[in-house]
């Protein structure tokens, strides 16, 4: 080892505190990059190969009833490679051990072969047998959540009659990688699942012999999804088609692509934040190192060391810091990636999902780190190289201070010299001070925004389940019933109040903008189901016309007063022009409301109902469930409390993991910035502080002088961070808006408080680490030499 390298290692030991801070920041950046980027590529790779082996469809369509004879016509559409037709129905399920009724989507599969498209991957058991109409295959998520396996029995209402089915196997499907019940905003694998039954058995029960109500298509490479969709729509219009959709609108695919995309995007900007912090910290640490070592630099030059070897020497320091952080980051990234994968496999069902770190991600990590090292070292290296040996031999002249901007104000004359020292030291390095402030602000904003996402979910839940939905249970009928059925509902055990609704599927069109949805007709006098605006106020449905959610109105480019075309998907399928009489900023994305009498007039019915919201005596819930299960007219029931509970169970763990990560990230940044700045301040001003001790200042007083600067910068950074956080919280809801729901804007004092407390505590704790060094200041040594 050369003498120069020995020197390098000695210095690294001496600066280990700063080095650790820098390593932690780099490690956080690398860990988040490696984790998210690898997660992104693992998910993408898994998804692609799964879709390929399972022959996942490209286009999906459902209709009321299409004769099988139409299939050749569909198959001959230009671009269509394969078709699979099915019968798909929603059913009520009685799960052994579960009091409340569950619901399921049953998809038919051919008994004698594997489906052409959307093939199942059997996790256990075997295929349904021809001629055994009671055979069923359960989705893995539903089976696991309810502890069911092959050989168990499960009861399902098939076309109004309870049937006991035999579970022959457990499987997963590319169509249902994640299972969300239609119209719900949350995952509840216990109460909603997917099942597969033989085509014969299902079509017999639902009058679908020789017909189908759902079809999936695969296309040849290069075929246009849109033109195929248009042709399918033309053919199937007369059969009650709901319109063909591409993969992009398929629910499971859309949710998982969103997740993949989120990993891709986060893998970009989160590491960028960490790397900017790291470059800044490296820069200030090395600039300081070079300035304390100007004499040695001069001597080395005098001895004939080249500029290059001196430059490499300091870059070496940066490289050691950065590579240390990179290795640690990769280890952490791998660990968290594995944990994250574990979490994903609970929600997303793949045949196999393994976390792998692709080589290019690792190579890129190292390259980016090295670039950061060179960047971070550049200005220090430049000053070392430019140092003329003769000048460097002289000690640095006293630091030049001058009156700052603040000195022009009268109040500065009355503040103490200690305050002057703090303020002037900040003013002397405006760039460094500003960057420190920005970094602290960033850490504060990260905390606020991170917590905001959870508050937003809380807000959605609170608005939806406490203010809008105040019913205990929501029933939907298999078919619209006449309104006297409402009186029957009152006779169910424990039911105290019934409020009926009518729901009609519609296509809304405003010029070129089209949106599919459903109009919900509600009575004027109601209490269980409210329409709630962005400020949680209950809103009346106007006596005439349509009430749209603001999200939908925006999608249709329509305003109050505009008239839009409403195409009924039921009854005579007329298209009617109707005025928008009100818009509400409800959190549910696409919703249209009308008074129920108005809706009945529109569909030319006399008081039919699609379902009802109920208030149920909680002590009689068990009886209520038992009776609901025996009522064939009821297609499904949504129980508010259980939905809420299962939601909270799923999300609380998620939330905990993410909160920990966010707090950790923010702490690392704040710690890195404060520790490095304070450590450098101590190195620059150690002599000054020691001579103040000689003059009789106490340890407390010099602590204030040293850390006052850091505290002041932190205090400047926090409000800026709160402002950035506020802006982000205001922007994010618009960025994350979807058809299903909208994140409400929220900005709670609690989150701001948490951020302030965390950042401030980090500053104080970090400061006290530095303070310990003040105790060992050598008062005598400082008098003997200068610098």
């Amino acid at each position, binding site marked *: 080892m050369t003498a120069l390298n020995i020197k390098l290692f000695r210095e690294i030991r001496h600066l280990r505190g700063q080095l650790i801070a820098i390593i932690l920041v780099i490690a956080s950046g690398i860990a988040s990059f490696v984790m998210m980027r690898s997660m992104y590529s693992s998910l993408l790779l898994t998804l692609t190969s799964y879709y390929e082996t399972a022959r996942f469809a490209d286009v999906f369509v459902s209709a009321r009833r299409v004769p099988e004879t139409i299939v050749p016509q569909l198959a001959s559409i230009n671009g269509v490679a394969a078709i699979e037709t099915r019968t798909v129905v929603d059913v009520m399920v009685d799960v052994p051990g579960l009091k409340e009724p569950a619901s399921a989507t049953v998809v038919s599969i051919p008994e004698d072969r594997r489906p052409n498209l959307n093939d199942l991957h059997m996790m256990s058991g075997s295929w349904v047998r021809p001629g055994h109409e009671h055979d069923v295959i359960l989705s893995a998520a539903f089976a696991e959540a309810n502890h069911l396996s092959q050989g168990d029995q499960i009861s399902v209402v098939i076309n109004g009659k309870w049937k006991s089915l035999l579970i022959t196997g457990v499987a997963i499907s590319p169509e249902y990688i994640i299972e969300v019940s239609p119209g719900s905003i949350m995952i509840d694998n216990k109460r909603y699942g997917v099942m597969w039954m033989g085509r014969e058995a299902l079509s017999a029960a639902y009058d679908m012999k020789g017909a189908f109500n759902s079809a999936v298509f695969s296309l040849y490479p290069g075929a246009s999804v849109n033109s195929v969709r248009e042709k399918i729509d033309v053919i199937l219009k007369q059969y009650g088609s709901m319109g063909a959709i591409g993969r992009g609108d398929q629910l499971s695919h859309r949710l998982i692509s969103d997740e993949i995309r989120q990993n891709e995007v986060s893998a970009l900007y989160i590491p960028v934040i960490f790397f900017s912090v790291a470059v800044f910290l490296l820069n200030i640490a090395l600039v300081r190192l070079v300035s304390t070592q100007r004499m040695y630099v001069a001597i080395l030059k005098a001895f004939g060391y080249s500029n290059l070897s001196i430059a490499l020497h300091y870059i070496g320091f940066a490289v050691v810091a950065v590579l240390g952080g990179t290795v640690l980051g990769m280890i952490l990234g791998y660990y968290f990636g594995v944990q994250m994968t574990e979490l994903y496999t609970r929600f997303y069902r793949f045949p196999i999902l393994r976390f792998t770190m692709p080589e290019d991600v690792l190579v890129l990590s190292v390259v980016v780190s090295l670039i950061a090292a060179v960047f971070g070292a550049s200005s220090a290296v430049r000053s070392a190289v430019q140092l003329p040996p003769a000048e460097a031999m002289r000690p640095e002249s006293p630091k030049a201070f001058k009156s700052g901007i603040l000195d022009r104000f009268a109040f500065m004359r009355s503040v103490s010299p200690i305050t002057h*020292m703090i303020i002037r030291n900040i003013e002397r390095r405006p760039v460094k001070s500003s960057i420190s402030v920005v970094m602290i602000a960033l850490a504060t904003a990260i905390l606020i925004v991170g917590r905001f996402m959870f508050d937003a979910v809380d807000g959605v839940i609170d608005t939806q389940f406490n203010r809008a939905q105040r019913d205990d249970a929501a029933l939907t009928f298999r078919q619209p019933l006449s309104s006297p059925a409402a009186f029957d509902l009152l006779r169910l055990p424990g039911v105290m109040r019934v409020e009926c609704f009518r729901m009609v599927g519609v296509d809304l069109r405003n010029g070129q903008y089209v949106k599919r949805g459903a109009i919900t007709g509600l009575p004027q006098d109601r209490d269980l189901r409210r329409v709630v605006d962005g400020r949680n106020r209950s809103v009346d449905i106007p006596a005439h016309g349509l009430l749209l959610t603001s999200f939908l109105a925006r999608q249709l480019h329509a305003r109050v007063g505009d008239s839009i075309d409403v195409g009924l998907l039921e009854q005579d399928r007329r298209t009617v022009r109707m005025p928008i009489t009100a818009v509400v900023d409800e959190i549910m994305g696409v919703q249209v409301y009308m008074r129920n009498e108005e809706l009945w007039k529109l569909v030319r019915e006399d008081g039919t109902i699609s379902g009802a919201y109920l208030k149920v005596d909680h002590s009689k819930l068990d009886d209520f469930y038992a009776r609901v299960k025996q009522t064939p007219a009821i297609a499904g029931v949504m129980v508010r409390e259980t939905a809420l509970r299962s939601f909270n169970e799923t999300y609380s763990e998620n939330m905990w993991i993410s909160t920990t990560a966010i707090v950790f990230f923010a702490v690392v940044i704040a710690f890195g910035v404060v520790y490095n700045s304070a450590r450098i301040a101590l190195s620059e001003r150690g002599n000054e502080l020691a*001579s103040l001790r*000689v003059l009789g200042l106490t340890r407390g007083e010099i602590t204030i002088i040293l850390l006052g600067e850091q505290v002041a910068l932190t205090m400047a950074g926090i409000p800026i961070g709160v402002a950035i956080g506020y802006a982000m919280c205001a922007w994010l809801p618009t960025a994350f808006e979807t058809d299903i729901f909208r994140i409400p804007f929220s900005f709670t004092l609690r989150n701001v408080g948490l951020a302030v407390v965390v950042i401030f505590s980090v500053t104080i704790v970090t400061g006290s680490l530095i303070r310990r060094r003040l105790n060992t200041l050598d*008062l005598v040594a400082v*008098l003997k030499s200068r610098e």
Partner: protein
Amino acid sequence: MHEAHSDRPVIFKVENLVKTYSMGEVEVRALDDVSLTIRSGEQLVILGASGSGKSTLMNILGGLDTPTTGHVFYRNEDLTHANDDRLTQFRRRGVGFVFQFYNIIPSLTALENVQLVCDIADSPMKATDALALVGLSDRMHHFPSQMSGGEQQRVAIARAVAKNPDVLLCDEPTGALDFKTGILVLDVIEQVHRELDTTVVLITHNASIAEMADRVIRMQSGKIVEEFEPTVRKKPSELTW
């Protein structure tokens, strides 16, 4: 003049002071059984070659360091085993230091440097008066980087005397200055001694400077080897070297 001080109260009394530094295997005796009494109002010069133990002695007197064995009394208080808080209070109230390197705070103006000490002292003089005393009234608002070495040293003296200390401890105050500036600085010290009746302990390796003392102590290898009162007490302006 010695007679004039002999009835004055004792400020420092040190008995059998020993200070050893161990440097690995070797042990350095910086002070070797030093005993000494300093009375209020006297101007004492400690003379000795470099390495003879002068600074070590002064640092112990000033509460910056503690002896290995022996005792230090400040007035009637035993400082030998005082803790850090007590020593801090002692430095804050009792002593003013002037060093070879001025050690003034670069981020504060001359006035603020003095004010810093006035803020924590019990009965300080006005910071402006202290600066007037050292002849820097017109440079009060200058920063250290805008002042010459002699001016900086005078700020250091103003800072040391502004708290009205019992004793002014000066360790080679002219060591980093040229002859003319050095004389100017010694003149300021002499003036403080005269006008404020401050006890002054002045350390130097320069025998000429000893001529301005009431009493001179000569040190060699950690021991006091000679103590005398100069027959003629010169003013700083009369010194040459």
